[in-house]
């Protein structure tokens, strides 16, 4: 060993360059860290932006004076009085339509109160403000409203309320809710998982337990990995071409005697979503099956079990937690997907609950998209509220997946 001193500098010049190198190193370390900080700030900004939109002051006017309908203050009326007002002032057609949806006598006081506001008095939102503005410039806003809209009422409003969750769509932002959208999303995700979970698990079992390393199985595996990367809107086009058009007799329900719909139903959307999440479910299930140790299989074969007996009684029970965890994650992906639903033809204005797989539908992300692209800012406020609902749903699903994984996953 002959150390080459030219390559190992010593002395002052070395020490000087060393401190320079350390400085560079620490500068870059800070830069790397700041990239992470930017990512965290982005997430915080996004969440702040959503929450900021969902609360705040709103200035509104009554289009018709409540005094035209009743001498008493509106808040003091009881259920029969509200009913009488509605009956007297609504056109008989409108009243009967409401009565058909749900008998008016059985509706709650709050329900009738909302109806009175929505149909008779009619709220006209003049302007609304974000949470930050409302908190920081409260006095200015009050002065502005008093000057610009002397007749308007100003109140601090949370746009996300229990009522928002349980009322159907409305063309007025103040009375719109996400009930039909949530139900539509749940129906769709349910159909998707019923379609994709058995097929996906079957495919994963085939690929992990049965498939030899031949050409066709390699093609299947590569193909699944590629399908996972296909843009979701392409799945939407596939759904439009196959489920909505070609299979219309099936997806519109006309084979089963449903006559009032075309192919743009929950069923089509659910199948499209099922095809979209299928590769994800297969890949996740493969990982879960891969994690089951070979010794279990060998032991089963050793006592004379057949291949399927081994898979059914030993591999699957040990992999099921992983498979379900993966499925829940796929499900949350399906819940947030918007583009395929637009293409398959989700309707944006549905005020009746979906009553089966063959009804027209809307979904939570579709409502968010629809409301975000409206020009009026009160629709942005309900878009923000719907986003909060969606994020809470997704968070719950993911928490469930993590719990499931921690609770049932066995370590070998």
């Amino acid at each position: 060993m002959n150390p080459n001193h030219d390559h190992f500098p010593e002395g002052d010049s070395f020490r000087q360059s060393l401190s320079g190198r350390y400085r560079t190193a620490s500068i870059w370390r800070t830069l790397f860290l700041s990239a992470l900080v930017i990512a965290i700030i982005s997430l915080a900004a996004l969440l702040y932006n959503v929450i900021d939109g969902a609360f705040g002051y709103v200035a509104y006017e009554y289009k018709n004076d409540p005094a035209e309908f009743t001498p008493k203050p509106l808040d003091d009326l009881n259920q029969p009085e509200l009913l009488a007002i509605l009956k007297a002032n609504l056109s008989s057609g409108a009243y009967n339509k409401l009565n058909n949806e749900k008998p008016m006598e059985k509706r709650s006081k709050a329900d009738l109160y909302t109806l009175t506001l929505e149909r008779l008095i009619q709220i006209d939102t003049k302007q609304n403000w974000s949470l930050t503005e409302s908190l920081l410039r409260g006095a200015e806003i009050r002065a502005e409203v008093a000057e610009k809209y002397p007749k308007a009422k100003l109140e601090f409003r949370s746009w996300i309320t229990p009522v928002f969750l349980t009322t159907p769509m409305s063309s007025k932002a103040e009375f719109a809710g996400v009930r039909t959208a949530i139900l539509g999303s749940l129906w769709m995700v349910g159909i998707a998982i019923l379609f994709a979970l058995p097929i996906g698990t079957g495919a994963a079992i085939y690929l992990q337990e049965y498939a030899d390393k031949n050409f066709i199985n390699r093609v299947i595996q590569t193909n699944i990995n590629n399908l996972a990367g296909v843009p979701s809107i392409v799945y939407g086009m596939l759904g439009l071409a196959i489920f909505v058009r070609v299979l219309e007799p099936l997806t519109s329900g006309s084979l089963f005697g449903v006559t009032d719909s075309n192919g743009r139903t929950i069923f089509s959307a659910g199948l499209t979503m099922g095809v979209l999440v299928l590769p994800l479910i297969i890949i996740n299930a493969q990982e879960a099956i891969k994690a089951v140790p070979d010794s279990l299989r060998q032991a089963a074969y050793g006592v004379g079990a057949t291949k399927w007996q081994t898979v059914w009684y030993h591999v699957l029970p040990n992999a099921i937690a992983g498979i379900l965890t993966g499925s829940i994650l796929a499900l949350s992906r399906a819940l947030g997907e918007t583009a395929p639903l637009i293409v398959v033809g989700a309707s944006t204005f549905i005020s009746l609950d979906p009553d089966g797989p063959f009804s027209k539908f809307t979904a939570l992300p579709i409502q968010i998209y629809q409301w975000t692209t409206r020009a009026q800012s009160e629709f942005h406020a309900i878009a923000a509220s719907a986003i909060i609902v969606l994020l809470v749903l997704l968070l719950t699903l993911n928490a469930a997946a993590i719990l499931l994984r921690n609770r049932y996953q066995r370590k070998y």
Partner: protein
Amino acid sequence: MESSTKLKLENTIMENQNFRPLDLKKKVRLGESLIQNLLFIAGFLSIFITVAIVYELGKEAWLFFGDPEVTFTNFFGTTEWSPGIGRFGIWPLVTSTLITSFIAICVSLPLGLAVALFLSEYASLKARSALKPILEILAGIPTVVYGYFALLFMTPLLQKIFGEGVEVYNMASAGIVMGIMILPLISSMSEDALSAVPRVLREGAYAMGATKFETSIQVVLPAALSGIGAALIIGISRAVGETMIVAVAAGSGPNFTFNPFQAAETMTGHIARISGGDLSYNSIDYNSLFAIALMLFLVTLILNLISQAVINRFRQRYE
């Protein structure tokens, strides 16, 4: 040798009347093979899905390109897209897709790479397990929510910074937010690539007196370059196929422009807008959407295949 032993064994068994001849052949079990075939069909369904995508998109795209008005020079030679009135220049949709994707990559590649380097080379185990869920949350947020963020946060922010030249719908804000959306993907794939670099390489560099930064950049990063390249390609593919952010924030209407502060509709945004309306089957508009979708599918397919090939080669080198 083996067969003769087997013969002898069988003969002994035959001679001894107390033994039933043992059948050591594999039994044909009907149920077992039925199940195996069913499972194969489940696996094969994925091939069927791909074939269906190519067939359906191809069929409608064929109708579109078969239209006598749609010529090659028309399609690639003009810059106005409006199939309903006979304008078939694809460029406005392509350029806006490229611009938004380019902006997204400009945001997500440096940030994602820096995050990956920090997490894999600098962060302690504890810090990493605390920080990674944040990125996972970022990755799990639905894209329509990013669209809301782009339109109602990023665009006003850009307008504050760059003034009135920024339109309400613009490619820049969609691109930047798309970059934030892709960041977790690039950082997690890059981090996997960086962590796969064997420890000996780092130890070797430290032994030569390299600082942590020099080791990371001059030794670990080059060794992981192919994996990072794969991450970049997947990132591009994701950006090209992303729909909701551009549908909400980039503008609604094809516009041939290179100014990122102007509104311009991308390929995906166009499909979303047109198919969202009342679209009659077999119209030129309907067929043209499938032509665009076919282009999208092919581009992303090729990108994904390249990325997978790169990853496979990379794995072989270290494992």
